[in-house]
């Protein structure tokens, strides 16, 4: 377990906790900025998405790898943990296809092999 690895006298759980708290503070604090500090440029929705996803991945990694011990445990648990990723990806694909924009708004590589044609053009 991670308590045996000490960094600056503290175990990995402590540092993981500090990192999780920092990124949560960053995540919540970022919401209060509608514009980039010191500028008049509005923060775009895609930047917000990017920040939230990156912070989410870091926090998810910290909780999964260290608090849930996936870093040290036998890899079978990591494989079990990653299994639903396939399910989640399938659902994201389903979201894309069932979206009103899905039929004629998605590029050809996103759809089943319809000869690079959109369904509505056949």
């Amino acid at each position, binding site marked *: 377990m991670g308590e045996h690895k000490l960094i600056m006298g503290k175990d990995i759980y402590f540092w993981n906790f500090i990192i999780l708290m920092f990124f949560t503070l960053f995540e919540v604090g970022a*919401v209060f900025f509608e514009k980039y500090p010191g500028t008049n440029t509005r923060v775009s929705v895609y930047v917000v998405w990017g920040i939230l996803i990156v912070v989410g991945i870091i926090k998810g990694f910290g909780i999964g790898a260290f608090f849930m011990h996936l870093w040290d445990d036998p890899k079978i648990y990591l494989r079990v943990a990653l299994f639903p990723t396939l399910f989640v990806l399938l659902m994201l694909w389903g979201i894309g296809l069932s979206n009103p924009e899905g039929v004629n708004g998605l590029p050809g590589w996103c759809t089943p092999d319809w000869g690079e044609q959109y369904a509505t053009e056949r």
Partner: protein
Amino acid sequence: MSGGGHSDVKNAVWMRALLMAGIILGLGVASYVGLGVVVAGMKETTWDEEADHFHDAEKDWKDAVAAGTIESDDTSAELYIAKEAAHHHEIDAHLSYLTYRVAGLTMLFVSIIFTAFLVISGVLNSAQPDDEHHDDHHGHEEHHGSASPIIFAFGCMLFLIGFPDFADGLHSLMLGSGSDAISDLSVGMIGLTIITIGIANWWREDLPFKGYGEQIATSDPFAGQHIRKAGIWVFLMSEVMVFATFFSSYLRMRTEWCTKWAFDEGTCTLEDGETLAMTASDYLRPGGAAGTGDFWTLLPGAINTFALIISSYTIVLALKVAKSHDYKVPTGFMGKLMPDKKSAIRNYLIITLALGTMFIVLKLVEWSHLIAEGFTVGSQEGSIFYISTGAHGVHVFAGLLIMLYMIFKADTVEWDEDNAQGIEYFGLYWHFVDLAWVVIFPAFYLY
């Protein structure tokens, strides 16, 4: 459950559950009286006064409009500004009243459920003659079949049958009407009681477990691993799929809704008569489209996020202490709080329970504010928000009930390096609940 029982758990030990129940009920009643009656009563008086001011200001404005002194659409008129300010104060006073009333009521209901859980578990188990508590006549490596999951599942079924009324009851609670809620909550509460009985049976089977005879999987892919650990991981992955369905439905609808954010980005347009879709974050986030969001509206969700992370850390600390062979007493205040290994584990678990309970209280306070502002379960946006965050809240609450048992065991049989895996396996569930919030919070509150 456990592979075999060795510890002799006397009825006097089970009766300690009643002591715990008494303390929790006392805290719940005290919180209700303090927050839900005394403070909420004062806030209600202020709300009534602010409502009267608003009605007076509105009457003055209407009279002036009727007299032709000012135009009805003149938003710079002094009387109009006074009316709007009075309305704003009335809303603030209403929300302030709801905060204390709902917090007090939630503390009371949570403590009643905790108490029922402890009393039923304690009494059922203490009712059994002492000499029947020995469980090792089966042989301590033998697998023990258990009826507990079936009882538990039956309770879940009843709870779900009663859930629509249960939801109505909670709605009444949100509006601060405790008496209407009782009948609506009944079937759901019976289901919860049966769940409690099933869990009490689980207690009886697990409490004597001292860590010897943990069942080991003998075939791939988990060969050599504890069966309970493999089981909890497979369970957690099924939970990932449950939350993924909520999240994907939200994502699917969110890509279609014309929110202010999407409108400003130019990814959608509004036809005549159409209005912007309002999500929970539009009410909670500073700069949200509803115009109600500021630091204070986001605060409960933010506190809850920190609370879950801290509680994840405290349960890791409980596990670390339980697994340690040489517990070192901390210095200063922490040393007084945790003078020995037993009290350290128990108190870390109590802190985790307190943080989880705070999560539930703040969640319901936040819901009451959203409902008061018109964001109800009746809309698509509200439905997905309340179902997703509600399902997460139910998981937190289920975790708290398990935590009560963990604290009870810490206070009686005790956790040590041999049976600490119980804390580890529960910790996996608790960390998963934290992990789910890592996704829910930014998606529903910040975006």
